[in-house]
């Protein structure tokens, strides 16, 4: 038997504040052999994170391991004393969390945190451990491996921090590595380098790993075996190829169906006949303090249509929405809402203008006041914009709830009693309460599971058809945008690099950056990662980082097609190509990447 970890009939219970214990994990068994990667997949609430933590003998506050055996390296860790169990963590088994930005202590230097576990467990002195860590940094392709450990977490980028967390987990030379959604918070372009780094290091060290994720395309790249979970129970288990190509269970098949096809493979919406724009943003320049985020951005949103805005995090997508809504003042440029020039600040806009343009934020959790009932959350804008009171207001709240496919009885509930998808629907209903002409959707599906997100997109589509509302749909999820948007705007470092009808943007010729984005979207095909990570484009892209406000073309430092002397000096203007497409690139139309 060369199993590193064997879990038998694991049961974990959790207690909501003030409640009694309810089962979360209901008797799951699994095993991981040396050098093997086992993926746990399922929707949120399926218990996959809980199981991965339990394999370290750890339960989050409010949870407890209620039963079962957890054999690690031939010992049942549930029979160990708490002290012995502490000694295992950070020594024989270590953990990589979803968000490195949140999992690094902001007050301590990175290097100290990386070697903290082995130093504490007496694996060596600080100097030797630091030398080992620097080796790891080098293996993980981190820039400046000798000095990166002296930095504080806020001084390095998200992708680098995620790789540093891998170094932190590997620094103790564990037998078992737990990876809990380690790339979910990353951009697709960053995800490739981090996935590659994880895969290489697991193979090099022969470590066994548990990889927790909800992204099947990612699983296809890293896992040897897959275990599908639903509501704390095992649904199906098998080798990666079998689960992906020939799923036996109904639920696994439904998970597969929820995966969206790659952006260039979807049936694109045909741009509807040109309508008068409800949002017309002209030459917008905006930023915070001395920092300029958006430079010379122009976007039109025609009535009753969907304009997708895509780009990596930090490219100014959200700032664009905030500027249109008047939350962030613009420095230059002009915004017209429904044909009328809108004041730059939200305070100076009359109520009618405010009513026309509503915003829906990413995190429904923080956007809804937890102490107000749904009825009040929806009732307030009804009163404010439409002057509805008493009975009329109550009726309209019910109508709004039905509009977003929720029962009327939800009016008396608090946000805390709702699921993530339901909260996002409430968030949307609140925007609809103003009866707007356009809704700014800022990453509204990013925090949701694939299946739930698909439901929200369907709802958005049906609302558009029913009410004729337009959306500015901001997302980093290209597949969703590709299947939903009539037109697409690609932002990079605060500039528009390409825009046009969805079909034209997602088919050749591409802007080099659009090409990079598209080729970075993981495909559900084993071996895809190796193929894409070795391309010149991916290497060039991971070598440079986004520089906001750079001279010349902002993408020049990461582009394989760069024309020396031109791209680094002159900012390319948006030029029109056939098919209503506009591209900001110095390359001749024939030379633009096509495949």
């Amino acid at each position, binding site marked *: 038997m060369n199993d590193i970890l064997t879990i038998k009939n694991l049961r974990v219970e959790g207690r909501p504040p003030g409640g009694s214990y309810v089962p979360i994990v209901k008797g799951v068994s699994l095993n991981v052999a040396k050098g093997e990667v086992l993926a746990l997949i399922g929707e949120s609430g399926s218990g996959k994170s809980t199981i991965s933590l339990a394999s370290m003998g*750890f339960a989050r*506050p409010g949870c407890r391991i209620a039963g079962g055996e957890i054999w690690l390296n031939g010992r049942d860790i549930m029979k160990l004393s708490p002290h012995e169990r502490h000694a295992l963590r*950070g020594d024989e088994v270590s953990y990589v969390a979803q*968000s490195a930005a949140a999992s*690094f*202590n902001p007050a301590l230097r990175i290097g100290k945190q990386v070697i903290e576990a082995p130093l*504490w467990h007496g694996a060596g002195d600080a100097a030797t451990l630091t030398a080992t860590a620097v080796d790891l940094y080098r293996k993980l392709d981190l820039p400046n491996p000798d000095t990166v450990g002296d930095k*504080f977490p806020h001084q390095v980028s998200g992708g680098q921090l995620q790789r540093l967390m891998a170094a932190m987990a590997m620094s103790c030379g564990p037998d078992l590595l737990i990876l809990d959604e380690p790339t979910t918070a990353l951009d697709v372009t960053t995800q490739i380098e981090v996935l590659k780094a994880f895969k290489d290091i697991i193979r090099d060290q022969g470590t066994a790993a548990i990889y927790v994720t909800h992204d099947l395309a990612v699983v296809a790249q890293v896992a040897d075996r897959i275990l599908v979970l639903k509501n704390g129970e095992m649904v199906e288990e098998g080798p990666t190829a079998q689960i992906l190509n020939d799923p036996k269970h109904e639920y696994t098949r439904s998970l597969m169906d929820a995966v969206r096809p790659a952006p260039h493979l979807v049936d694109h919406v045909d741009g509807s006949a040109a309508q008068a724009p409800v949002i017309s943003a002209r030459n917008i320049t905006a930023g915070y303090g001395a920092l300029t985020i958006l430079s010379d951005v122009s976007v039109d949103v025609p009535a009753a249509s969907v304009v997708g805005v895509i780009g990596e995090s930090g490219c100014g997508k959200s700032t664009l929405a905030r500027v249109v809504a008047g939350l962030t003042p613009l420095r230059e440029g002009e915004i017209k809402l429904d044909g009328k020039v809108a004041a730059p600040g939200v305070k100076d806009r009359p109520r009618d203008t405010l009513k026309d343009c509503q915003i829906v934020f990413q995190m429904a959790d923080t956007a809804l006041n937890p102490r107000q009932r749904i009825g009040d959350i929806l009732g307030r804008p009804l009163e404010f914009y439409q002057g509805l009171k008493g009975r009329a207001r109550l009726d309209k709240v019910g109508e709004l709830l039905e509009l977003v496919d929720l029962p009327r009885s939800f009016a008396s509930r608090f946000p805390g009693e709702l699921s993530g998808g339901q909260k996002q629907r409430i968030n949307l209903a609140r925007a609809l309460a103003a009866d707007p002409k356009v809704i700014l959707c800022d990453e509204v599906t990013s925090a949701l599971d694939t299946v739930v997100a698909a439901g929200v997109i369907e709802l958005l589509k049906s609302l558009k058809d029913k009410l004729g509302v337009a959306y500015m749909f901001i997302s980093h999820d290209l597949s969703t945008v590709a299947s939903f948007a009539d037109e697409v705007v690609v932002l990079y470092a605060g500039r528009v690099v390409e825009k046009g009808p969805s079909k034209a943007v997602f088919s050749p010729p591409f802007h080099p950056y659009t090409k990079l984005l598209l080729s970075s979207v993981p495909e559900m095909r084993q071996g895809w990662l190796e193929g894409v990570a070795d391309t010149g484009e991916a290497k060039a892209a991971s070598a440079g980082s986004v520089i906001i406000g750079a001279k010349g073309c902002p993408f020049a430092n990461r582009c394989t097609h760069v024309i020396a002397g031109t791209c680094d000096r002159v900012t390319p203007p948006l030029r029109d190509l056939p098919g209503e497409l506009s591209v900001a690139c110095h390359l001749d139309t024939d030379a633009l990447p096509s495949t």
Partner: protein
Amino acid sequence: MYRIILTRLGQGLLTLLLASIIIFGATEILPGDVAEAILGQSRTDEALATLREEMGLNRPAIVRYFDWLGGMVQGDLGTSLATKRPVADMIESRMWNTLRLALLAAAISVPLSLALGLWSAMRAGGKVDKTLAMTTLALIAVPEFFIGLILMKVFAVELKWLSASANTRPYFDFWQNFRALALPVATLSFAVLAHMMRMTRSSVINIFTSPYLEMAALKGLPKRRLVIRHALPNALSPILTVIALNLSYMVSGVIIVETVFGVPGLTRLLVDGVTLRDIPLIQACAMIFGAVYILLNLLADVLSIMANPRLRYPK
């Protein structure tokens, strides 16, 4: 970072200037002036006018303000009306008594409250935590003079271990000093302990739920190390603010303790000054208390700026 600190220092100075205006204005509003106070009941209008002329009291208030402020800056605190001695001399002899009480109380209460706060954070919800919460809340709820009197009754009157008078003499040895100062210092410490301790506890517990503490726990570190090494550095800012507020409260709140234990300190000098309408003395004492208050808060702000790596090492 240095720019932020310099700005903060500038704000501190500005606040101090504002305080001086308020103090001068307040003594200006008081009925009667120095000349009336000096001449007392037997004043005639003529004598009053002459004295005012002599003391320059006929000049506009703004001229006298700058005159006074200029003196302050140069260390000239004016001359007391009651004793005719320079105010600086009177304050100097008293200041040490007050400062000694406050410093001793700070040296005991700050580390103690931090330690107790961390201890109850580690045992949150447990017996230690609950007992500490009850005791410190009780101490905060009872007024200081009452605590002082109880301590005096128990330790000085009944047990006769400690002295009820905090008057020390230059020839006192260590034990005599200890006997004299133990009770007032304890009373002062109790007054500020609870607030600082509870802030430490709640700031640290707040951080317990953050992912980086879970990460540290999954490295197999014991709770002690999680609290001190991982949670405390991130909780410093609110703790420092509360410490500064309590210490500055202590410096001005020391009056009750000085009265109860008969300490000839600065606050009693201020009260005496008010009774005798000794305006230069009142102004000088008020300025000193104001300066201490502003200085302590300034110090807390600067320290929490320096404790923040985001500000220390910008990107």
